[in-house]
């Protein structure tokens, strides 16, 4: 399998008047062609910053300090805006967090998708582009006649489908789906996720799912990365993560989110609040909330290492954890 996207020690910081916010710190992972991974974490943990770094759509005060982003074998970190514009949507498309507001209210939905196509494929005529959009509509389960409607005439689910259709418009190699279903009710959520998974399989695209809901991600992603305070703390196959979470935070996550159709478990909440990324400490960032923290944890940052095949964890005490899982179970 060929890697399509590789992040190597990506550091993305925001400069604020209060100081530096380390939104993504030493983030590394590899995504292969046709593979889908999930990026999970609480809100504010830096998952969206990672996705925005990949798109290079950072706000004016955000910048990539160091690290590399290889897309299709090329390091895009130093790409100019013009060069990036060629990669955006044609190479990497995105499904945004707030589908409600992701469509421009003053243009017809169909036209907004056509616009994406004609921007990247200038040789496609308007009619051809419309035909493609119509096909995409069918693909995501929308009536092609709704193409000429305005966003405010769509329901929330329809908008989400339209956005999925839009993300597929240029046949991208990678789609980043940032909380694709958060705003929808549970039933629609599920349908849309299934739809998305189907399309991804069909078109053999790579996917990055971003969500705070590990249960949702686990259904569609083959691998899961768990982020905490700007760092990936654990990454492995979804099955492994579910079965044998190694990082205390991952365990906490498992316990605090019910699966859509999982068996009922007593919920364990993680005490404390996520740390302020502003002037982040040098020690393990989870230490203040960790029931297993030792002096070591308060002194330095644990390294991100492979504890078993394809199972990476950044923790000093991954060993202790299995017991707790058993105890809880």
């Amino acid at each position, binding site marked *: 399998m060929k890697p399509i996207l590789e992040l190597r020690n990506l550091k993305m910081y925001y400069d*604020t*008047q209060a100081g530096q916010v380390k939104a993504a710190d030493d983030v590394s992972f590899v995504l292969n062609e046709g593979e889908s991974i999930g990026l999970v974490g609480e809100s504010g943990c830096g998952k969206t910053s990672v996705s925005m770094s990949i798109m290079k759509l950072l*706000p004016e*005060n955000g910048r990539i300090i160091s690290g590399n982003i290889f897309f299709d074998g090329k390091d895009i970190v130093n790409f100019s805006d013009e060069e990036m514009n060629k990669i955006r949507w044609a190479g990497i498309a995105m499904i945004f967090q707030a589908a409600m507001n992701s469509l421009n209210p003053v243009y017809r939905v169909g036209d907004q998708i056509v616009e994406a196509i004609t921007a990247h494929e200038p040789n496609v005529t308007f009619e051809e582009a419309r035909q493609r959009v119509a096909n995409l509509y069918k693909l995501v389960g929308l009536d092609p006649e709704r193409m000429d409607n305005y966003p405010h005439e769509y329901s929330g689910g329809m908008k989400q489908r339209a956005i999925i259709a839009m993300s597929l418009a240029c046949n991208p190699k990678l789609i980043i789906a940032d909380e694709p279903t958060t705003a929808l009710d549970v039933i629609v959520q599920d349908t849309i996720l299934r739809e998305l998974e189907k399309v991804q399989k069909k078109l053999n695209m790579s996917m990055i799912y971003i969500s705070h809901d590990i249960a949702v991600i686990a259904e569609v992603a083959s691998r899961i990365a768990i982020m905490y305070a700007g760092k990936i703390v654990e990454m492995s196959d979804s099955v492994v993560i579910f079965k044998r979470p190694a990082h205390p935070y991952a365990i906490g996550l498992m316990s605090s989110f019910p699966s859509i159709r999982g068996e009922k478990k007593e919920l364990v909440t993680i005490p404390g609040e996520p740390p302020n990324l502003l002037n982040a400490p040098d020690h393990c960032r989870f230490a203040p909330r960790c029931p297993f923290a030792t002096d070591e944890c308060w002194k330095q940052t644990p390294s991100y290492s492979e504890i078993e095949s394809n199972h990476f964890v950044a923790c000093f005490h991954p060993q202790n954890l299995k017991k707790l899982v058993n105890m809880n179970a």
Partner: protein
Amino acid sequence: MADNTNMTVKSVEVKLESPFSIKVRLLWRAFKENWNIFSKSKIGMIGLYIVIIFAVAGFIVYPILADTVWKTTSLNAMVSYNPVTGYDFLQNNPAPPSWAHLLGTDPLGRDVLAQLLYSTPREFMLGIVAALITVVIGTLIGTVAAYFGGAIDTFFMRLADIVLLFPFIPFLIVISGMMQVDLLTLALIIGLLSGFGGITIVLRSQGLIIKSRPFIESAKVSGASDAYIIVNHIIPNVMPLSFLYMMFNVTGAIFSEAVLSFFGLLNIKMSWGLMIYTADTAGYIIGSNIWNYWWLWLPSGASITLLCGAFYFIGRGLDEVVNPRLRKR
């Protein structure tokens, strides 16, 4: 806005324990928070400094100078200098700046600097009285209309439509040209005209937003009276916006007064606008060279511009407090 909301929610909760002092402390904290945002706005701070300089000059420096430096040039050496009647006929008037008259004298031999400073408190008075009337009316009507809706709402909104119809400056010109308008009357007219006009509409829509917030519902459920809710919950939350409009209204009032005085339409004895009017009708402004008698029009014209601009600057600074989306980061 979010900060304020939290603040009020808390104040509802803690009110039961100790009512007044905590409220004051919370208000103080809200003020400090807003001040922090405001003080970061360069434009707002420049405006504030200018206003302070004018206030000091008008309220403190003027009375001192009038009783000392200029007293000798007074018509009646026993009372302090009055720049309305303080003719200095010992020289050719208008005289250019000299040690006796730092900004020269006007065509009638009156000290320009004294006129400038003498008028300053009056401009403040006018601006602030007009703005206060506007804001009090606008806030009351806006919140009441928003809270009760129905016939009251419709009535005041239609009234605002009509008031908005009035061409403001032409209307003031007609009124002041046809009846005797002094500074206080003018403040009243300006205050009423703008109070029933645009500001009500803005504050009403703000009020509607506040009204839909959950804490209003909870206050209602806990049996608070309508008046109590309006006074304690809605008004404090639209206050920052009112304050913002107040600043813009001060600008408007001072500018209107200057224009009306410039046409000699007001029944007042001295103002910045009147100073330019005097110089203009006597023929000292335009001729072979506008700079020949610069001291007759530049100081007063610049003062009008600066003070109007300063309040506008403060308004812009406040805008960033009130409207977080305008904030830089």
